[in-house]
């Protein structure tokens, strides 16, 4: 069993390493694709004397062939040396890690909210079609999928920050309780988008499963309803739910950027927007690699989860 998991994970990891390599190449090419010459991309508006130019050219090997530059860049990136931000002249890695706290907290908060509300709502809806629960679930899933996080955020900001000021609306807060208070509105906005996907996928998957012969067969044999719902129903509906959770996690990447912008939070997303608007190439490269790594990590988690819930998949890897 353990061997099967390891074999599976290794095969997935190999694929993902390849994927990261492709992404890294594209990311590196950004230096060249950006407007102006590569030196602009690296040095930005830094006052450029001939000495500085020479020093930078030597440091980044701009006089060497493209593939050598790429390899040395890749070598540095692997050691987490992502260069310096043009804007702040600080290490890209340091800046990202400093701002990571808020983003991670926000995303985790929203994810927990979305799962805790979404799955039960979807189960209620699937087991009680044509009731108020079903309608609520359908509404939530359509609006959640359609409404961009920044609009939801804006409405929440207005309602509970301006109209009825229940929650603080500036800064991210210090300490756990304070942070929860500060991040509740942003997290709810982010969770709403996630909720839509989770409810949509879980509801339709469970509806399909509850229509299967094995559900009727279980009921006809006298298996108690609760067990039919959980062990026969939900258990077999998990694969699309996992897919939805993966999509939600990836969606949180974009969502958090929008939400941090809406609520002016000092997270990675806000920094990314700054970097992009000022064409801060090293910072953008760092962000892009971070995004790619996160996407890869999430896909790996999703694949492992598929593996855990599907006996067929497990068997295929045992033999």
């Amino acid at each position, binding site marked *: 069993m353990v061997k099967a998991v390891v074999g599976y994970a290794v095969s997935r990891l190999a694929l993902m390493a390849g*994927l990261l390599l*492709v992404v890294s190449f594209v990311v590196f090419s*950004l230096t060249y*694709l*950006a*407007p102006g010459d590569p030196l602009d991309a690296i040095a930005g508006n830094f006052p450029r004397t001939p000495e500085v130019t020479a020093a930078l050219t030597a440091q980044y090997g701009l006089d060497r062939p493209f593939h050598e530059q790429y390899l040395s860049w890749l070598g540095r990136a692997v050691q987490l040396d992502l260069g310096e931000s043009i804007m702040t002249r600080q290490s890209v890695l340091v800046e990202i890690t400093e701002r990571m706290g808020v983003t991670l907290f926000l995303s985790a908060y929203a994810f927990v909210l979305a799962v805790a509300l979404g799955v039960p709502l979807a189960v209620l809806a699937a087991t009680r079609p044509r009731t108020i629960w079903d309608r609520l679930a359908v509404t939530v899933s*359509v*609006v959640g*999928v*359609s*409404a*961009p996080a*920044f*609009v939801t955020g*804006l*409405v929440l*900001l*207005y309602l509970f*920050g*301006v*109209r009825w000021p229940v929650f603080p609306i500036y800064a991210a807060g210090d300490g756990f309780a304070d942070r929860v208070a500060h991040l509740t509105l942003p997290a709810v906005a982010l969770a709403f988008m996630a909720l839509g996907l989770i409810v949509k996928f879980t509801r339709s998957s469970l509806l399909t499963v509850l229509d299967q012969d094995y559900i009727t067969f279980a009921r006809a044999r006298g298996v108690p309803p609760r067990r039919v719902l959980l062990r026969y129903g939900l258990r077999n509906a998990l694969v699309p739910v996992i897919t939805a959770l993966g999509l939600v996690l*990836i*969606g949180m*990447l*974009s969502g958090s*950027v*929008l939400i941090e*912008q*809406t609520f002016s939070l000092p997270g990675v997303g806000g920094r*990314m*927007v700054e*970097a*992009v*608007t000022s*064409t801060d*190439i090293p910072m*953008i490269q760092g*962000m*892009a690699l971070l*995004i790619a790594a996160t*996407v890869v990590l999430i*896909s790996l988690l999703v694949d492992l989860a598929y593996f855990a819930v599907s006996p067929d998949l497990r068997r295929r890897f045992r033999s």
Partner: protein
Amino acid sequence: MIEPQTRRRARSRRIPLLVLGAVVVVLGGFAMAAFGSVLAPHDPYADSLQNTLLSPSSTYWLGTDDAGRDVLSRVLVGARLAVLGPVVVVIVSALIGTLFGLLAGYHGGVVDSVVMRVTDLLSSLPALLVAVVLTGALGGGYAVAVAVTCLLTIAVDMRVVRGAALEVRQKAYVAAAMTLGLGKWRVMFVHILPNVVGLVVANVFLNLAHVLVVLAALSFLGLGIPPGAADWGRMLSENIALLQSQPLAAIAPGAALVLFAVSMNLVGDWVFDTISNRERS
């Protein structure tokens, strides 16, 4: 085991009221995009220092923003920018995605699996962030954003069409067409395409909603569309600061965006459900 006829009869044939409403909203949105500048009661770009931050009134139905511009006119005119990009993206990607999806589904084999790996990869990326990174790094404006979104949408369309075509490819009537010696293109366009086209239509609406949101998000982040433009995403981000004084200036474009996206999703979901119900019976 309920017999198929019963299942079909049990389901009502008429279009639900909600979907009809959604169709009206979608058509209204397109009308706004086409005639917004004619309908607008005021010049959406006319600054007026006397009229800043007015509350809704009979002259300014939705009030004015901090430069004294009429919010309603800006929302109406903004529809064009909001809709144009998504429509272009969706049409181009439906055409290209359907063609290549059909080819991949029809031929199968090695080419198919390589192509599918690539589209899998593309469609697993967060579209908005890819667009953000590329528009940011390439320094381009709206055109780059549209091109990037288009590429990612093509991947989605291809996957959908290819999956459906692969399924239809297994049907006996396709085998029968092949044994009659019909040409490859005839089999693809007469025997496969008409039976997957419903899915393409459903996808057009779902994609439209998605691309609408992605492009609006880009301009919300300050990319693609120049500052001050009458664009929903721009209005949202620029008027957040006005939430205290004139909330409608930010909320109105947001509401328009959500209403439009929800309606397109409703229509897309309905088309999708109708097809899958018909197939099941």
